[in-house]
């Protein structure tokens, strides 16, 4: 349903997509968490081949928007940060995917 309504939008309307996950690193974080039940900070960093600072900054932005949840714990004496995609984040990713598909569809219909 959401997909169909997105497909009916004009390219101008389509341009109004979610800026929060449009940023490449945040988009990759959300996509990675959409395909795994949860990921630790170090796994996410390894998977996205990026730096600690990059993961940390962008994950915090996503956490503030409640797109992802972060839990901190200890594994032995080592601190462990675990990220999980929240329903809001999954819906945002689905909506973003619909927008991308709508843009491609609009270009094909031209």
């Amino acid at each position: 349903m959401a997909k169909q309504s997105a497909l009916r939008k004009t390219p101008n309307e389509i341009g109004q997509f979610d800026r929060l996950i449009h940023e490449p690193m945040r988009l990759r974080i959300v996509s990675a968490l959409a395909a795994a039940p949860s990921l630790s900070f170090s796994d996410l960093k390894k998977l996205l081949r990026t730096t600690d600072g990059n993961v940390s900054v962008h994950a915090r932005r996503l956490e503030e928007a409640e797109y992802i949840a972060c839990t901190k714990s200890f594994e032995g004496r080592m601190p462990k940060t675990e990220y999980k995609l929240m329903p809001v984040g999954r819906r945002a990713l689905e909506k973003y995917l619909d927008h991308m598909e709508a843009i491609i569809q609009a270009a094909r219909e031209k």
Partner: protein
Amino acid sequence: MASVHVLRAVPKREPVELHSQAMDNLRVIRDTMERAGSFTGVPGWGGVAMGVSALLAAAVAQVQYPSVERWFLTWVLEAVVALAIGGFAMELKARSVHMSIFSPPGRKFALSFCPPLIVGALVTFVLYRSDVPNLIPGMWLCLYGTGIVSGGAFSVRIVPVMGLGFLALGCAAFFSSPVWNDAYLAAGFGGLHILFGVIIARRYGG
């Protein structure tokens, strides 16, 4: 005195079209999801179930002696059961994150994991027919370990480490007395599967 500046047309950068950027973004999403899926796609609880079935098989196989045929058949049946459990558990884990077991990472895992198993089946047949079944357990552990190491190369580090555990047990089985064969099989297919299965399930979501 005024200086003379030569005016040159600045080459215009072609604007990136919106739809081409959209296609790039979709590609990024797909690639990242595929890599994350393969990263944690090894089923922990499935491994535990495989381990439990291997321990049961070891107990059953132990009482089949001196019939080598029945001992052999017990472990062959266990291999079929364990593969079915593993495949089903992978499918369940993939479904839980809206992925398919036949996605490119799943196929990549299968292409790395299956060749050593196929070789194992062939060598099993040869060793059994050549009347040297004592070598079969070490070979099974080594080739299964090889499959796990190569199939798990793109996964979390713990998966290839588990494969190395199988390789170590296989090597030990080759150089030990055949009376320990069932113990090695139980320790590998039972113990290692349960131990690493619990770790993977607790750390990587099932």
